[in-house]
């Protein structure tokens, strides 16, 4: 690797290599964030329920 643009070019395979990494990043990012968001929403929703006496 001589310089950065050569690194980005990936020996002519840039489109394939970077789309593979980009796609993986999107899916990992979604799996990192979505469950946490769902948890917060669920906790808010359950906490807002009317109190019931029975356990």
């Amino acid at each position, binding site marked *: 690797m001589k310089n950065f643009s050569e690194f980005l070019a990936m020996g002519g395979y840039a489109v394939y290599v970077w789309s593979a990494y980009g796609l993986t990043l999107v899916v990992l990012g979604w799996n990192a964030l979505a*469950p946490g968001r769902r948890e917060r929403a669920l906790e808010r929703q*359950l906490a807002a329920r009317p109190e019931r006496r029975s356990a």
Partner: protein
Amino acid sequence: MFERFHQYAAPMHFHRLSRKLSPWLFGISAVLFVAGLVGGLILAPADYQQGESFRIIYVHVPSAWLSMFCYMVMASAGAAGLIWKVKMGDIMARACAPLGASFTFVALATGSLWGKPMWGTWWVWDARLTSELILLFLYLGYIALQSAIEDRRAAARAGAVLAVVGVVNIPIIHYSVEWWSTLHQGATVTKFDKPSIDVSMLIPLLLMALAFQVFFFASLLVRARCEILEFEQHTAWVRDYLRGRHKA
């Protein structure tokens, strides 16, 4: 030992433990990702046959391994829920499905992006690719079952049966490159011989595989907490927990 297992099998204890563990696991996986990416994208030399395109291996192979590992976790958890009525089994199986589907999708898509420049085609209907596609359908079928059946226990039972039957697909995926002639290259790491890959390429691959694995457990813990809250929403401890969260 069984006592301890039983303790964490109880959703309340698991929920508490999971809240402590998941941030650490996300952190550890981030460090491993950085190390693996530096090794894989910068330090490892280009492949003598495949040039720079081989670097797709560092996202393709870990997600493919994980797609199968996650399935085994899902099927074992489902079986535990089905046979011994372990509630955490049902919960873990449900939490696995979206993760497994994601990683199967990544394995298929990155494989396709690798196949185009190397084989000249995005897709072939050969044994390895087709059995991995069936794995995706198994996950999607499981998810569809969960949302189609209203009663949680019934949904978990139906899903567990599907997951256990689908286990037959896992050895088919693994051995497909040996049993049938295929465009897909054979195993280079998971075989009894010495791995046929240079150390400078192998170490980043193992780092990435470990990163994916730890990330999987981190994300699984958060998903499992959501499932626990939904399963246990009418219990006293969930009410107490939510009240505590609200005050904080």
